[in-house]
């Protein structure tokens, strides 16, 4: 079986600093992987490199998506293939109405895959369905992308997009940051609704708390640009009890 996402011995530098020193990770369809680690361990860098953010130099290793070289693809090609990054800090885009943005993005992905574009009524129907599930009021969709949204609304907007685009692999970068417990629960429910045997998720988080809501199959601990320990969901609890210090020493 070809893995959905395969990160092999990945080395990444930003300017003169090597951030990832040979990171490997294999994600199969249906699996949920949690990546935990202290600040500065390279978790967000990994998510950015998978999504294709400019400014990172890959100096070694590779990332394969269904066996294809992901690093050769532009960010929009990766999105069309089914890679989705839920941003830690979703940007505000004044003057671009959320609805217009969603339709443009969805149709751009479909077009890149050689699928027909959604008609306006079909698109509206689909967005309304998904928005209702996530408790996103229609009024929010008429505003500029994320403009004036609370932290929780921004994260729900990310999950709305995830539900709409139906990606094969979702990278959730610190989805819990800035969320209170109620907002976290709504967001996590949204994510859990998207679990499926075909779809994989990589949940990046600093705290174990999120993993009470999104229960992972595998937990990886990152420190100083490497995965230093992997295990089942119980590893997260162990970390909660003992902290990251032991791994920082190990690395």
């Amino acid at each position, binding site marked *: 079986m070809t893995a959905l996402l395969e990160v092999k011995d990945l080395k990444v530098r930003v300017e003169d600093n090597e951030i990832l020193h040979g990171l490997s990770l294999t994600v199969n369809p249906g699996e949920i992987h949690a990546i935990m680690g202290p600040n500065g361990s390279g978790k967000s860098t990994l998510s950015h490199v998978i*999504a*294709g*953010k*400019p400014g990172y130099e890959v100096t070694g290793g590779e990332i394969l998506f269904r066996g294809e070289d992901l690093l050769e693809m*532009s*960010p*929009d090609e*990766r*999105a*069309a293939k089914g890679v989705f*990054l839920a*941003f830690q800090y*979703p*940007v505000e*885009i*004044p*003057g*671009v109405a959320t609805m*217009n*943005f969603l339709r*443009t*993005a*969805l149709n*751009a*992905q479909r077009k*890149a895959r050689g699928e027909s574009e959604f008609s306006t009524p079909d698109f509206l129907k689909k967005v309304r369905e998904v928005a209702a599930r996530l408790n996103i009021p229609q009024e929010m969709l008429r505003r*500029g992308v994320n403009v004036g949204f609370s932290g929780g609304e921004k994260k729900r907007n990310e999950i709305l*997009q995830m539900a709409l*685009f139906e990606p094969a692999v979702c990278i959730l970068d610190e989805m819990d940051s800035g969320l209170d417990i109620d907002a976290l629960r709504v967001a996590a429910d949204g994510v859990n609704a998207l679990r499926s045997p075909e779809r994989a998720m990589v949940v990046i988080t600093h705290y174990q708390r999120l993993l009470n809501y999104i229960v992972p199959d595998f937990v990886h601990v990152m420190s100083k640009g490497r995965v230093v320990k992997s295990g089942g969901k119980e590893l997260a609890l162990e970390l909660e009890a003992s902290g990251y210090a032991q791994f920082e020493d190990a690395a």
Partner: protein
Amino acid sequence: MNVVVAKTETGRAMSDALAIARDRLAGTGKVADYRRQAFDAYAREGLPHRRIEDWKYTDLRALMREVLPLAPAPDAPALTRAGSALKLHAIAGARRLVLVDGVFAPKLSELGDPEKGLGIRTLREVLEAGDAGLHTQLFAPDNSNPMVALNSAMMTDGMVIDVADGAVLTEPLHIVHIASGGTPAAMVTRSMLRLGKDSGATLVESYIAADGAKAYQAHDSLIVSIGNHARLDHVRLVEDGRDAFNISSAVVTLGAHAHFNTFGMTSGANVSRYQATIAFAGEGSRVETNGVNLLNGRQHADTTLFLDHAVPRCDSREVFRAVVDDRGHSVFQGRIIVRPKAQKTDAKMMTRALLLSDDAEADNKPELEIFADDVTCGHGATTGALDESLLFYLRARGLSEKEAQALLIQAFVGEAIESIANDTLRELAISAAQRWLEARG
């Protein structure tokens, strides 16, 4: 008639030029005198150059070099070409007034059955008729500006439109300037719109070219007077051919409690200059003047606005956006004068430029001269590139680089376009911006 009107170096043939063109220029007696005076004023200065402060960024001697001979009156094939060019730019429900190569084209226009209170004549017929008062108004713009003077001397045709007191027009008036593209030549036009008190009108001006029109020059001017309690909504869209020149002037006067909402967008022409003087002559009036330049290649577009607050309690708002790619050059000069009597003036000006390439240039010159002490005035200007973090977000959602840029550019110019009060006109401006974005690829 292949004689240039002004040569850069020599000024040769200048005085002959008016004589040569005379058979094309309507009006005798006093009108001919006005033309001669205007031509002399132009001939003394010649094409403006960078050592004249007001033309520092738009050196017509270097950019334009010479004024071309007047375009011949359009023949049947020219009108056919113009007719096909018109199709893309026609506005449903508008009263179309078409000038082809600087000459009114009745067959492409709609003159019949005017709304109550609307009077339309051509400049030619007005200049040929004996209304001395009207002639004075038509020659009122200041000859100290050489391009205005040239326009006064050589104007061949245009529209003279009157809206009676109390008449609020429902149909927009659409003046379309079309270059048919026979030979490289100059079109020199002037239009006038007079709005009576309590009246209302919408005016759209489009500048377009027929397929294959090459290196022509559009020299246009507009005189507007807005009566007390009257309102004018105005949109001008410069979509001239990519090697054309468009040098246009406007002189606008507002009475008391009048409202002028104007929006201009330049996405065409190789070199363009729009110079407008807007004067408050009555208290309690308001002006919103917004503009957008969308430039690429080696396009040069200059918007020079002069807001004259001569009386108290008037508001003015200027919002200007420039998007400049490749080696394009955008110029915005905004001068606001608040004269000693103009207390309680509220004047604001904001310009922002978006540079899409390292070679793009945007010059911005705000000038506030305030001689009254109880006023609110302000201006701001920014220049920058597209925000990389926004671009990445959009690309991570599947938009190609061009699509992501287009969406952000639309949002950027949208801030200026939003001010267009009339829905149809706003859509018109949005589609003109989209045409530019699509042509970008």
